């Protein structure tokens, strides 16, 4: 196993215990991450979607890490999944984004909200990598406030018809199926979730969003739907409960993103240690300069602070998964996942910036491995809940529901 990851796994093993199967999952993740690294770097340099991600994750049976074994997943509990995402984060946030969307926002949401027939239909395929999933919530005019979405659906002859646009959708142009949210035409207060087949008539990838300042290896698309037909069987959760589906999915996703950001910091720390020991200026290794040491101390501190928050959120999620009806557990899980994602995403951006600083002129260069992290982590402060939404959410869980500023 990669050295930092191996140490981390040992620490978690001592803390919560990991079964043989869980260790096997982490070994597989380590092998997949090692194999992905060179591709991720190359595709990043070429500014294109890394199509090797689903191929290599499937090869190591890692497309359904949190999915129950009865649906052909690996059945990993949240702490194991967080560790897996951390290792993938060492490779890059492009890999994390793909895996987070496919597994946390996609299949885990179907596992949580789908009926048995939907689970049987989608989960084994998603877990084995024969389909790729996406999650289409955001719209050009509805980002942090999904309740203002403009996409609509109507019901006719036992079928639904969806019309509207979805924006900044990760895996959007490569997904086979996606969870789509739309507002009822007859009752505009009702937002519902559907599992949509991207081969359906009326579904169109309007644009692949390539002019991003980072995350080049992740597929991002603008999508349009014109009367796209969805069967009654593909309504996900109860009609009108779409926002509950969306918010629970994002709660899962935030732990994954936080864990990915921890992996980014692992890699930054490794890179700056190596660089500062080998780079000689003023007659000595720059590692011997105190101002460089200050950056390294800050990087290590931000990494450890974020790491244990993410694990705490994952362990909290494990408790909640065992008692999903417990409202207090849900609120605490929501709060912890928001704190973990907020802290880790900001820390990783700062850490990547400090790493660039240590790399000096070489750092201000797209070829530098830490610059890749700098560009890729910026979005983690925006997607799956902006910094500001995370701050409001954290504050309201402390102050009480009546202080929810976004209501």
């Amino acid at each position, binding site marked *: 196993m990669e050295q930092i990851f191996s140490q981390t796994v040992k620490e978690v093993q001592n803390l919560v215990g990991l079964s043989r199967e869980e260790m096997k999952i982490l070994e597989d993740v380590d092998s997949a991450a090692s194999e992905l*690294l*060179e591709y991720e*770097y190359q595709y990043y340099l070429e500014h294109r979607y890394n199509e090797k991600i689903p191929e290599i994750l499937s090869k190591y049976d890692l497309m359904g890490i949190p999915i129950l074994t009865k649906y052909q997943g690996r059945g990993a509990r949240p702490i194991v999944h967080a560790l897996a995402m951390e290792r993938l984060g060492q490779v890059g946030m492009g890999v994390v984004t793909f895996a987070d969307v496919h597994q946390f926002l996609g299949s885990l949401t179907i596992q949580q909200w789908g009926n048995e027939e939907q689970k049987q239909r989608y989960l084994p395929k998603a877990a084995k990598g024969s389909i790729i999933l996406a999650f289409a919530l955001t719209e050009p005019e509805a980002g942090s406030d999904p309740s203002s979405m403009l996409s609509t659906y109507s019901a006719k002859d036992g079928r639904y018809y969806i019309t509207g646009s979805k924006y900044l959708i990760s895996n959007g142009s490569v997904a086979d199926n996606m969870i789509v949210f739309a507002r009822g035409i007859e009752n505009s207060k009702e937002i519902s979730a559907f599992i949509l087949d991207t081969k359906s008539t009326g579904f169109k990838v309007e644009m692949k969003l390539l002019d991003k300042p980072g995350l080049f290896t992740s597929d991002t698309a603008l999508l349009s739907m014109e009367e796209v037909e969805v069967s009654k069987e593909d309504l996900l959760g109860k009609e009108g409960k779409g926002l509950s589906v969306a918010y629970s999915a994002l709660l899962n996703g935030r732990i994954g993103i936080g864990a990915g950001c921890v992996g980014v910091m692992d890699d930054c720390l490794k*890179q700056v240690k190596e660089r500062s020991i080998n780079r000689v200026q003023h007659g000595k290794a720059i590692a011997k300069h105190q101002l460089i040491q200050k950056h390294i101390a800050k990087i290590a501190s931000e990494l450890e602070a974020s790491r244990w928050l993410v694990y705490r959120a994952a362990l909290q999620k494990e408790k909640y998964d065992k008692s999903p009806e417990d409202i207090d557990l849900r609120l605490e899980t929501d709060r912890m996942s928001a704190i973990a994602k907020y802290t880790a995403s900001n820390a990783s951006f700062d850490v990547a910036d400090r790493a660039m600083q240590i790399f000096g002129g070489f750092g201000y*260069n797209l070829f*530098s*491995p830490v610059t890749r992290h700098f560009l890729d982590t910026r979005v983690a402060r925006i997607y799956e809940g902006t910094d500001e939404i995370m701050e409001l959410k954290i504050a309201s869980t402390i102050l009480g529901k009546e202080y929810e500023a976004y209501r």
Partner: protein
Amino acid sequence: MKLTYSGVIDLLGDNDRVFALLGNPEFLIKSIPDVESSKRLDDRSFEAVIKLKLSIVSSSIRTLIQIREATKDSVVIHASGSGGGSSIALLISFQRNPKEIRWSADAEVSGLISGLGSSILNTFAKRKIEETIRSIQKAAAIV
């Protein structure tokens, strides 16, 4: 920057023949990927111009390659070269085992290439070394 790598290659029974060819300069030079030209210097050494394309480094590296040891169980090769603002020196040892070839390498890189970091360089070096062995394996199948 100093780097160390190691690996194991399972040759599915071709070990002896591959190992014998590994210490043979004629076969070795034909098996190293991306060699643009080469010149034999003596029984154990040759000079090769190798196209190295890895991120920022994309240039022809003039490399001196020496077979320092070639016994029935061990082959040691040293390679050093520079170009494109980078320098590389590599000492690689191959050990023959009944079912596989184990290899380990110590490298020293400096200049632009060192800024890429060990993670990327390790993966790249490992792939190139394995490509070399597989290429020798193919040659062994023909011989």
